[in-house]
């Protein structure tokens, strides 16, 4: 159904790091890079969608207008989306909906963040009714605490070990060495990982992704607009976008909640929330896990990457460790995962990260990923989950 697809005309990023500058600068650099990559001028853009940042004051809450002003006011409509880690894809979905509705031909989607040092905390104030405040105040349950709960569950249910988690770090850090936009371009060894301090047992500091500054942008266009361009061989199509929320009863303990739904009085779910994220995208794209050339999954922790293998259907429950050790998810394998280096090499720049995943898939499908190129990539999937119940998954095809 080509008429229901939008096309990625351009992608761009500002390198990840801890630069300490205004997030607007990273976003503007990324947007200009994406426009240059598309061979388009800002004056040709009909719509701008952006992902918000919660830690940079008011400009972060109105990111759409913030970036429109930075690129130069032109009177076009904007939107500002927040869905935690899924913000970038919710912004992409906003742009796609606008294009498919015939209300825009070309849209720019931008996300950028300037991150504080250390643990993410809740917003300031005294708010016992806010689950995000409550979990820190009453339990000291940080994000790594939840990652550790999931990791421990893998160990107990499937016999995973911290050596398996380390193998994810080694793989992703090796991939990231070849990525000029990655913050950490250093290959880790098992010994170095062993020396890393434990933050939330069973996870070490190097198992948990850092908080980073960075910016990413994509230029989307209608199929009609794209068909008139000269660079059609570089075009990548958006075959599906999933922005699903959980279904009741969600009995898996998700951040930031301190208790799950009760399963009493409701029929059991056909699939878990995390499983439902990719499922919706596969249904829309008309492809399945066997069709994927590569995937970018949200490795907030090393152990979580293994969960994602199962959630996106690369293998069955409890089989992720074997898949990892088979080499299938390493560059050169059957289905390389996080060829970009993943969050292990980037750290997380919240509203930019899901957009950065799509940038990587686009480079892979164009054959422009250089030393980290996946052979003959034709179908790519990116996936993540934002706290408070946001799923995000994008499938792109060539």
């Amino acid at each position, binding site marked *: 159904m080509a008429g229901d697809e939008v096309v990625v005309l351009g992608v761009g990023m500002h390198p990840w790091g801890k630069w300490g500058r205004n997030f607007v600068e990273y976003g503007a650099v990324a947007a200009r890079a994406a426009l240059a990559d598309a061979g388009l001028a800002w004056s040709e853009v009909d719509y701008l969608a952006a992902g918000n940042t919660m830690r940079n004051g008011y400009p972060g809450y109105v990111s759409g207008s913030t970036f429109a002003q930075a690129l130069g006011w032109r009177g076009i409509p904007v939107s500002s989306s927040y869905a935690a880690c899924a913000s970038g894809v919710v912004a992409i979905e906003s742009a796609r909906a606008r294009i498919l509705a015939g209300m825009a031909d070309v849209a720019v989607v931008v996300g950028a963040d300037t991150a504080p040092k250390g643990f993410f905390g809740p917003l300031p104030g005294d708010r016992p009714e806010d689950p995000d405040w409550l979990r820190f105040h*009453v339990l000291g349950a940080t994000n790594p605490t939840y990652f550790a*709960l*999931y990791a421990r569950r893998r160990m*107990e249910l499937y016999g995973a070990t911290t050596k398996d988690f380390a193998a994810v770090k080694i793989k992703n850090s090796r991939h990231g060495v070849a990525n000029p936009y990655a913050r950490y371009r250093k290959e880790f060894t098992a010994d170095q990982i062993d020396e890393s301090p434990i933050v939330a047992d069973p996870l070490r500091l190097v198992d948990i992704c850092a908080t980073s500054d960075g910016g990413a942008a994509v230029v989307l266009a209608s199929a009609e607009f794209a068909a008139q361009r000269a660079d059609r061989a570089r075009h990548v199509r958006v075959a599906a976008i999933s922005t699903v929320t959980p279904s*009741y009863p969600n009995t898996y303990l998700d951040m930031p909640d301190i208790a799950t739904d009760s399963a009493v*009085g409701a029929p059991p779910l056909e699939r878990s929330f995390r499983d439902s994220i990719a499922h919706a995208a596969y249904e829309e794209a008309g492809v399945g896990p066997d069709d994927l050339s590569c995937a970018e999954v949200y490795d907030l922790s090393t152990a979580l990457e293994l969960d994602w293998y199962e959630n996106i259907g690369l293998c069955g429950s409890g089989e992720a460790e074997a898949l990892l050790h088979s080499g299938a998810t390493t560059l050169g394998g059957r289905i390389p995962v996080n060829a970009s280096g993943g969050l292990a090499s980037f750290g997380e720049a919240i509203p930019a990260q899901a957009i950065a995943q799509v940038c990587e898939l686009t480079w892979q499908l164009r054959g422009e990923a250089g030393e980290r190129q996946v052979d003959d990539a034709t179908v790519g999937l990116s996936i993540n989950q934002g706290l408070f119940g946001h799923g995000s998954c994008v499938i792109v095809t060539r």
Partner: protein
Amino acid sequence: MSKPRVPVIEGMFREGLDGTGRLLGGRCPTCGASFFPKQWSFCRNPACGGTELDDVELSTRGTLWSFADNRYAPPPPYPGREPFEPYGVAAVELAEEQMVVLGQLAAGTDVATLALGREMELIIEALYETDDAVHTVWKWRAI
């Protein structure tokens, strides 16, 4: 004189005379689902539509769903203690309510001895102390 014991948050739990405790939740009289914290006055089951919740005390025992051990001080608003002491957390599945509830591990429950499915019991313990009060919270103790 012992210091008065004050819940770290009002209305989430109740402490008995002997350190036993109950979590205060809501239960829908129509579909039977429990909620913790009670938070709202209506049922969240989309197939139910119940508009009132009964006040209930949740089960005090359950089985271990997962656990973790925190080695670094969390950011505010964690009240914590100085110097920082590592603390475990446990996610416990309540059989009757069919839900998972997170809590810190009680003093004396060693993370190294835990395994999924272990039976756990709710107790009320100090989260931190000030000059004039012991601020309490619910915790999970291995049985």
